[in-house]
């Protein structure tokens, strides 16, 4: 068989292929953008939509809403995956695009808690759930659609463009938020400006909808449909059939579970760690993460291409192993670079203005402490040297992300046959990423807080802290999950594709 043909169907022409990749990637990118602006604005949203008397409770509520957005993704994968395997890939991922766009725009229009009371958080929660459902259906459709247009020996390279969208979507969400913030006063942003990134989404969705509308259905799906070979009950075939279900489990435990936690550690936990544990300034943190993401994005395509040459398994497992071995030293170094207690203070530059204490340090870093009642809020602005060092450390983590995530779409597509592909690949992907990965910031933050509280309590009693480095405790979650996934992947995954047709 010709290496450019897929299941007896000639792969699409180069021009068509790039159109397919462009249209699919753009839509998926917008969906990720929509999904992440909520997470990036979690602190602002918590003050607007949740009872304001207890900021911690409000923030936790937002995290819970955030988690709800992730937990619901597998249900979207099942619902839209089934539709995609019955009526087609193209129509299904157009529905998910519109659902996501409408939900995002609506979040930007919901009045705050002070205006409509308890209806505000309920509405936001419902819209967030709809976002999760839409995302659950989108990714599998886009990856399957591109893979089914591609030549088999370039599937990793072609689908890796879809893989860049999650990172680029996060990058654009951070950039839009920063641009919006910088174009108005802090009061205006807090008052209404935070709604702008949500409303911008509606324009992008309309553009992407019209581009996608003109695309053809996947050639493999069209052929299967014309031959009457599509599944009438993809859910039953995927999960009720032992032969397929064992591969769903293998995909989850041997690949997507580890990939999910590495993705969220490198991109989200790094952000949360810098802001909440190291107390680095909000804008500077976003700038650090944005720089690292921008520098690392091209590697998704590189590792996708490499997986066509040497196989998906070695590339993904190498990323997992490197992450497991180096996370603790990387995060420890990030902590040290932002820790003002070990920096040399320039005493003559210390000033106090009202309830604000400001200090400067010899490496160009500055720190402020704002007293509000009994609580003191610390903010660190790191100097140039520390900035680039932290950006490099985040970039290394992004590199791990590109190794595990670049080839995963091709890997999943090749694990399952056409008739149940959308359903079968979407579920392990969204359970691995949405549940194991999505809950990472909350679980890791919980572990760090628990260790810090245990240290404080122990110091009051005996003076001995049980945790030497409590700030690193959160990393046990991704290390453990990725460790199990690495062993399962190493032993049970095959390097050869199983369902290349």
């Amino acid at each position, binding site marked *: 068989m010709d290496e450019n043909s897929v299941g007896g169907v000639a792969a699409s022409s180069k021009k068509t292929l790039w159109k397919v990749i462009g249209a699919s990637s753009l839509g998926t990118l917008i969906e990720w953008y929509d999904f992440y602006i909520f997470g990036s604005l979690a602190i602002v949203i918590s003050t607007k939509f949740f009872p304001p008397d207890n900021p911690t409770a409000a923030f936790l509520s937002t995290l819970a809403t955030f988690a709800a957005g992730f*937990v619901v993704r597998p249900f979207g994968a099942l619902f839209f995956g089934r539709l995609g395997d019955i009526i087609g890939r193209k129509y299904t991922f157009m529905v998910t695009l519109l659902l996501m766009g409408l939900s995002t725009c609506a979040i930007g229009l919901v009045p705050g808690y002070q205006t409509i009371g308890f209806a505000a958080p309920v509405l936001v929660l419902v819209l967030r759930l709809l976002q999760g459902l839409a995302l659950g259906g989108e990714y599998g459709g886009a990856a399957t659609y591109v893979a089914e247009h591609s030549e088999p020996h370039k599937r990793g390279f072609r689908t890796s463009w879809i893989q860049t969208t999650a990172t680029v979507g996060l990058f654009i969400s951070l950039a839009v938020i920063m641009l919006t913030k910088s174009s108005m006063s802090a009061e205006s942003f807090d008052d209404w400006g935070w709604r702008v990134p949500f409303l911008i989404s509606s324009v992008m969705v309309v553009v992407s909808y019209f581009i996608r509308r003109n695309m053809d259905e996947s050639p493999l799906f069209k052929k299967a449909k014309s031959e009457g070979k599509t599944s009438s009950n993809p859910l039953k075939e995927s999960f009720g059939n032992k032969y397929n*279900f*064992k591969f769903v*489990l*293998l995909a*989850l435990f041997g690949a997507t579970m580890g990939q999910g936690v590495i993705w969220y550690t490198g991109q989200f936990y790094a952000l949360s760690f810098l802001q909440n544990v190291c107390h680095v300034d909000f804008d500077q943190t976003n700038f650090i993460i944005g720089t690292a993401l921008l520098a690392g994005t091209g590697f998704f395509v590189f590792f996708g291409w490499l997986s066509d040459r040497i196989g998906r398994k070695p590339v993904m497992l190498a990323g997992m192993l490197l992450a497991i071995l180096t996370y603790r030293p990387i995060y420890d170094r990030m902590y040290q670079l932002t820790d003002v207690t070990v920096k040399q203070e320039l005493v003559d530059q210390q000033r106090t203005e009202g309830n604000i204490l400001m200090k400067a340090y010899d490496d160009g870093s500055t720190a402020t402490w704002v007293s509000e009642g009994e609580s003191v809020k610390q903010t660190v602005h790191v100097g140039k040297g520390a900035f680039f060092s932290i950006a490099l450390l985040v970039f290394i983590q992004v590199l791990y992300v590109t190794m595990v995530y670049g080839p995963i779409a091709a890997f999943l597509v090749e694990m399952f046959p056409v008739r149940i592909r959308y359903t079968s690949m979407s579920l392990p992907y969204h359970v691995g990423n949405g549940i194991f990965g999505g*809950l990472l910031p909350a679980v890791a933050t919980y572990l760090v807080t628990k260790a810090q509280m245990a240290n404080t309590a122990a110091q009051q009693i005996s003076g001995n802290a049980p945790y030497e480095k409590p700030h690193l405790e959160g990393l046990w979650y991704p290390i453990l999950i990725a460790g199990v996934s690495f062993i399962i992947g190493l*032993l*049970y995954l095959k390097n050869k594709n199983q369902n290349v047709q």
Partner: protein
Amino acid sequence: MNTIKRILGVVWILLGLAAGYYLIVSQAIPQFTSGKTEDLVPAIIYTFILMPIITGGLCVFGWYALQGEYNTVE
């Protein structure tokens, strides 16, 4: 290699059960009984989402491995 894959099936089943025990006894029950509203959501996620996926999934995966479903055909 096939023998190792099969033997490790037992490890995955035990790991699934241990994870389920930890999630329910150490996490979910204390949070359900803490009386705090903010603990309710994580407790529900642990009990009804994470536990079935991790425990159920790993036990079935381990069982399949034990039965030789993932063995390489020579």
